[in-house]
């Protein structure tokens, strides 16, 4: 039966669509980000003690390019909530910063300190996939209500905390990155045969490589890996990796390099003529700091945004929540938000919605158990679109998105081509509830065992 499936049918079966409009059917009870609507009066007695959020992310080192916007996203949401009187109109939000760059052991100690000495009510943030598996179990042990913004490794809910109670995570899981980029490739350049890879040598790059490979095995069975490059995270000299990739005469080069590393990679690749020699696809390049990429960036590259969010989509008036978020963020920080800013902003409002719902049901300030019950299965409309929290694994899911780089007069840096945005329903590229835990990830084994190998 497997041999009968053709690629086009399979992709449309997955719901991989280009240029689809977001179906906006916001119901009356759906919480949204922002505090513009008239607030309902909270029930019962609400204390006016400040609500303390411990926000840990990268404030130093190369990953500050992701951490700083994450903090700004949470800060913006908190300021908005405070301007409207605070949570349930009473409790002002206070954000305490902690630097994730201190290292995993120090981060664990800092989380303990935040809970035991500072008495935080909520722990949020985290960028690195190396940190969530260490902090997750500690947050559970300390019983501190936690929502990781990123740190998106599948390992967290596959293995480290398979039955989470206090911890949640908002942005899409890591495997979605490799899968989304691979599907975009299979749809755009399905005939590619010789594939060269350049990935940073740590868990994210390895994960992206695994999932790119497994999806391509299924949808582009003719494709073979002709070159691998594993630069260290933080590398800015890619001469050797580019030379090697070009020398392997690839049709397509795929990379999960990001941040300042990516800026260096594409600028050097331009001078090596790499973009003339092969097509190019990325998983995260346009997601880290959209404005750090220059006008010299080639167009038509598959431009990954961590399968989460780019501030230009949904565009214009199509999705007012995004328009207003981008405007407010730009007015406050004089830059454009990335997926971390959107994630932290939405996480804050997700919490707010859960608190309000719990108050409506029981009155007074809800305890953590009630907030958790409200968060499980919760859905909110954020700037990026709908996000829901799966009750069984506490993982946030939203439609995966990727696009093509394009220059437009409105911005001094490339954005995603508004006419060619690719979106994929997240449920179709992640392991479903009840799927046995697998190696390297559950999603990997799920794709391996259940997706057919298509005919060309």
């Amino acid at each position, binding site marked *: 039966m497997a041999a009968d499936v053709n690629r086009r049918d399979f992709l449309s079966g997955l719901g991989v669509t280009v240029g689809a409009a977001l179906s906006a059917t916001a119901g009356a009870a759906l919480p949204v980000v922002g505090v513009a609507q008239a607030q309902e009066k909270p029930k019962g007695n609400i204390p006016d003690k400040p609500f303390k959020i411990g926000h840990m992310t990268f*404030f*130093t*080192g*190369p990953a*500050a*390019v992701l*951490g*700083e916007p994450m903090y700004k996203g949470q800060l913006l949401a908190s300021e908005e909530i405070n301007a409207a009187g605070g949570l349930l109109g009473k409790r002002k939000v206070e954000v305490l910063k902690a630097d994730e760059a201190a290292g995993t052991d120090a981060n664990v100690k800092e989380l303990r300190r935040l809970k035991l000495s500072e008495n935080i009510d909520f722990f949020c943030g985290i960028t690195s996939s190396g940190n969530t598996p260490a902090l997750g179990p500690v947050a559970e042990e300390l019983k501190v209500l936690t929502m990781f913004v990123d740190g998106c490794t599948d390992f967290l809910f596959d293995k480290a905390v398979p039955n989470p109670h206090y911890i949640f995570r908002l942005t899409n899981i890591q495997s979605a990155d490799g899968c989304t980029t691979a599907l975009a490739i299979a749809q755009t350049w399905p005939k590619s045969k010789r594939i060269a890879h350049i990935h940073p*040598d740590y868990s994210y790059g390895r994960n992206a490589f695994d999932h790119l490979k497994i999806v391509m095995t299924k949808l582009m069975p003719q494709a073979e890996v002709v*070159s*691998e*490059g*594993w*630069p*260290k995270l*933080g*590398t*800015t*000299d890619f*001469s*050797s*990796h580019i*030379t*090697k990739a*070009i*020398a392997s005469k690839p049709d397509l080069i795929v990379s999960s390099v990001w*941040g*300042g*590393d990516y*800026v*260096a990679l594409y*600028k*050097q690749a*331009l*001078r*090596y*003529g790499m973009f003339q020699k092969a097509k190019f696809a990325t998983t995260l390049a346009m997601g880290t*700091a959209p*404005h*750090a990429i*220059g006008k*010299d960036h080639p167009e038509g590259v598959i431009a990954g945004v961590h399968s989460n969010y780019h501030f230009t989509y949904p565009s214009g008036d199509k999705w007012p929540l995004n328009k207003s978020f981008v405007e407010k963020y730009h007015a406050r920080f004089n830059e454009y938000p990335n997926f971390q800013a959107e994630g932290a902003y939405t996480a804050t409002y997700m919490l707010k919605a859960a608190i309000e719902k719990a108050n409506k049901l029981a009155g007074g300030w809800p305890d953590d158990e009630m907030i958790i019950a409200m968060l499980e299965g919760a859905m909110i409309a954020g700037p990026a679109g709908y996000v829901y929290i799966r009750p069984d694994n506490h993982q946030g899911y939203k439609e995966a998105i990727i696009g093509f780089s394009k220059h437009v007069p409105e911005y001094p840096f490339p954005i995603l081509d508004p006419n060619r945005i690719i979106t994929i329903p997240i449920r179709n590229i992640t392991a479903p509830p009840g799927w046995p835990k697998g190696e390297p990830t559950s999603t990997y084994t799920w794709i391996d065992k259940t997706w057919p190998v298509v005919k060309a």
Partner: protein
Amino acid sequence: MDVLLIHIINSLLYASVLFLIAGGLSLIYGVMRIVNMAHGNLYAFGAYVTAWAVGTMAAGAPVPVLLMLLPVGALAAAILGAILEPTLLRPFYRRAEEYQLLVTFGLLMILEDLMRFIWGPYPLSASEIFENFGSLTIGDVIYPTYNLLVIGVGAAAASFLWAFIYRTRFGVVLRATSQNMRMAAALGVNVNRVYVQAFTLGCFMAGLGGAIIVPSQSAVLGMGIDAVVLAFIVVVIGGLGSLEGALVGAVIVGFVREAGIAWFPEIELAVLYLAAATVLLARPAGLFGRP
């Protein structure tokens, strides 16, 4: 064949920048017996200052002007060095080495935060120069012309430094201080002045490395910490305190890394440490080190 040639040029490119960083580190150690952990961030500081001057302040200026601005990073690093040595390092010369390590390591962290504070967390580029040099064709491969300039600067710095140390009066004083500081002082050498000069020169080289590389790579946080680790691999191979060692070490690291990437991508990270470990086992003081 063409590809092999490109690999060789790539290796020399990497070696040039590494030599500028490790050479300064080695020079400072050779003269002052200080292992300057902060050295990597003087390199990063040079990169940031040049990127800021070329990419932000003078953005859009004609390329010759931008090229003239290139060395400002090196000068800034030198000035910073000239301030740091007498104020921060001098009080610790009489203390045990651990104190110096702690102070310079702390300085590494402080400089990292200082750069983040001044220039923010986003990468800073100065790629207009790199773009303007274009590419040249070697066989059927094209190669960024600017990289050849970097190799040229690396080679020029090495020869200049050699001439400076072995052919000038200052070089004699420097070498005398390096061999026996007390004796040099007894003979009337102003050791404090030699120290600040050596430190400034070392910082200038690191800053030059950053300034020359930033048009093709952009300045990012954390680049200095990476650089100091690589520089230590170079001086471990070449021998701490030896300029010849820094040069040979940088060339070895350049070629080993290139070969690792080309043929053993899975162990790209490990291959440099393996090279350093091999040298340490065979010659614990490094290839050119004084035991």
